[in-house]
């Protein structure tokens, strides 16, 4: 699947523009300074290999991943060991170390936010289902609707203006401290992005949990459990919630995998130097090696997350067992 994704991404950048009549020089002119001479554009086209057939260019990319590549920086040649995702067309920096360097930011953001949205989303969903039609149910589902509806670049900017620049409770955009450097500062800096991101996702999880719980709590086996004299908490958590968790787990796997691939809007809004910001800059600069790198990275995480979720099905749902 990753090979297919890499071919599609490569094609979007190289084949489609050529269909539209673009030449190697036209492609190269994106990566030179303003008013560059034709000689400069030609040299850059040569350097970036745009004059080679597409198959050769794609083969070079794949070769870099499996056996590494070399980068000529003028004053010498640098070895890029496998998996080498190439060098940025703009900055000349290798892509792979940059991705690894940015991963802790995105992981920190995703894990913290996921914790919040699962705890609050599922809890609110369960309570809403148990108190269907109550004021709490209406209020929480109304809030959830707002969470789903409001885009993060709006809630993010509003939260910064209110809590950072207005009240001064949270740091300004761009604040980032490594967990190993200062854990308290790490959490403080990420608090607002966590809450904003969790607000968006918790809404979906609350609504999904509520719907699932309403369905499962009406099942015969719930009535049987109650008839056996089990405590209500046990009935709700062990029999009701457990069954309702399966679709939530599926969604969580996809959401979390996508988020690890880059929480683009959140990282852009809060200027967090993670994979999402990396992705948006790569696209804005049309920096193909960076785009390829981050796309493959993100796709890889979605695959891994989906696999982990499949394994977790067996734990959550007794009807699913690995043979």
């Amino acid at each position: 699947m990753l090979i297919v994704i890499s071919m599609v991404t490569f094609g979007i950048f190289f084949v489609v523009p050529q269909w539209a009549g673009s030449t190697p020089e036209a492609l190269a002119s994106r990566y030179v300074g303003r008013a560059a001479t034709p000689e400069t554009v030609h040299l850059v086209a040569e350097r970036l290999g745009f004059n080679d057939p597409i198959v050769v260019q794609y083969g070079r990319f794949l070769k870099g991943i499996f056996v590494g590549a070399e980068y000529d920086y003028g004053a010498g040649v640098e070895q890029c060991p496998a998996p080498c995702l190439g060098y940025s067309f703009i900055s000349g920096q290798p892509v792979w170390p940059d991705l690894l360097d940015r991963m802790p930011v995105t992981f920190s953001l995703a894990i913290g936010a996921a914790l919040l949205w699962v705890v609050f989303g599922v809890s609110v969903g369960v309570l809403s289902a148990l108190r269907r039609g109550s004021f709490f149910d209406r209020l929480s589902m109304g809030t959830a609707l707002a969470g789903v509806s409001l885009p993060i670049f709006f809630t993010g900017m509003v939260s910064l203006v209110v809590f950072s620049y207005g009240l001064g409770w949270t740091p300004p955009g761009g604040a980032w401290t490594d967990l190993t450097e200062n854990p308290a500062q790490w959490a403080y800096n990420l608090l607002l992005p966590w809450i904003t991101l969790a607000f968006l996702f918790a809404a979906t999880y609350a609504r999904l949990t509520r719907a699932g719980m309403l369905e499962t709590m009406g099942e015969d086996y719930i009535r049987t459990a109650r008839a056996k004299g089990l405590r209500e908490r046990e009935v709700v958590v062990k029999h009701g919630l457990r069954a309702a968790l399966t679709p939530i787990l599926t969604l969580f796997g996809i959401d979390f995998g996508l988020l690890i691939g880059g929480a683009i809007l959140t990282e852009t809004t809060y200027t967090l130097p993670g994979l999402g910001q990396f992705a948006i800059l790569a696209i804005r600069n049309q920096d193909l090696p960076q785009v390829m790198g981050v796309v493959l990275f993100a796709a890889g995480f979605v695959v891994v997350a989906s696999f982990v979720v499949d394994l977790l099905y067996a734990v959550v749902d007794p009807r699913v067992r690995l043979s």
Partner: protein
Amino acid sequence: MKRKSALAAAATAALALVLSACGGGGGGTTQPAQSASGAAAQPVANAALTEVFNPSTKKGGTLKAAHSADWDSLDPGDTYYGYSFNFGRFYWRTLTMYKPGPGPDGNTVIPDLAESLGEPSDEGKTWTYKIKPGLKYEDGTPIGAKDVAYAVARTFDKETFPHGPSYLNELLDWPKDFKGVYKTPDVDYKSAVEATDDTTVVFHLKKPFASMDYIVQMPMTAPVPKDKDTGAKYREKIISSGPYKFETNEIGKKFALVRNDQWDPATDPNRPALPDRIEVQLNVNADDLDNQLISGDIHLDIPGTGLQPAALGKVLPDPALKARTDNPTIPRLWYISVIPDNPPLDNVDCRKAVMYAADRVANQTAYGGEVAGGEIATNVMPPPIVGQEKFDTYPSEGNKGDTTKAKEALTACGQPNGFSTTMTFRADRPREKALAEAMEQALSKVGIKLTLKGFPASSYFSDYAGNTAYVKKNGIGLATHGWGSDWPDGYGFMQAIVDSRTIRDAGNYNLSVKSDKVDGLIDQASGELDTTARNKLWVDVDKAVMEDASLLPVVWAKALLLRGQGVTNVAYNEGQSMYDYIMLGVE
């Protein structure tokens, strides 16, 4: 039970974080400044245009800056943005520089590394610069003329340094077999640039050129030690020749400068070097950057092109914030290329019809009006360009367009009922879209029908409006463009956008001005050593372009700049077209 415990623990942790944030107040993080002005000068709008606002000689503190994108390169040989030329003077020195400070004096070139301005000889084909004694790099090694010559020679290799200006590649008399200092290290390049002794740098040009002092204020002449040069990787570890050196440099994220103790202020009267430390954060959300500038979390917006539309709505109605603004006319022109590649625009009278039919007021409004957009442009060169003259070849009452003369021009070109053509614009730039719509409306009054096509900015020049084949094949008649000067004289502003010999396959800012008369005048002007005569020739170039009707000026751009809170020594420098960064200090 285990899962329940985990959920409970997670909920407790989340709650604790929320509570600590509410009560803790920041765990050491700086709070947004409520008022950092203290006893500072009272803010007044446009105060930094003609004098230094909040003057101070106090040293110390950290100047915090942010940039909404990434630097093209921090390497002085590979960068081509105005903000980079301005900011780079913290860590590099060049042969000459713009005089620091406000007002028109900022257009004056003064010596920096050099003892005096260049000495032309051989009718302007040879330029000699003597550099000052006692100059040192950050590691204490001396800076000599050979370092400047080497720095210039290394930038010749555009495969390694594709971003920087190409002026010296074009102007100097390079040996035919020279491919750059890395590919042909044994080739002697003294036919182009040489160090004749420890302090003398000599440039040899292919033809007379008068603006050399402007060219050598560009960072290509910032010295680079040959033994520390790492080619394209030099941007990661730059050896400073200025008052600051790199402490950290995380490419694409942030960097910090600290004092360079080897810099001798006795050799450099132009840099007050007030802050102890300078921090720059990159790729900051542009709207958030403005918010941080307003609140005082940062002191400086690096690109220096002005506030974003979202912040304009907040700043302009607020008297306190507006008092912190400066609204200069900058040496930038927003314009429309009227491309003669396809009929009927290959006929000059049809192009003149476009000139007369355009509603300049509507075009200015599309660009954001007088304050945020700019002044209505009647000719090519903007007012800040030295020697500029304002004239109007296509006048109309109230600048609203002259439909009578437009129809006469249409009749003269054999299209009395008008014609159809296509206009391109950058789709992700709302002002350009509005401009295209204003043109569509104005031109329709005389029967010229425009089909509007928007394209992404990132490939606008490479694939569409700057691509010769695309323009010809798709019948593009009009295209929105913008250009800012490399230095404030006629050559620095106009050569790149009106000289037909610069046109290439793709990436063009000019596909419309293709006039032998204009090209001839450019050659005359660029070789004229007498300043007055040279300035007049550039005005003649401007007039010839307007008579050719292949470029419709829209506005001479204005920027709405916001002075950071707690910043001292703020002055808008005309040479830099932004605040003079090397003057800044913090309270």
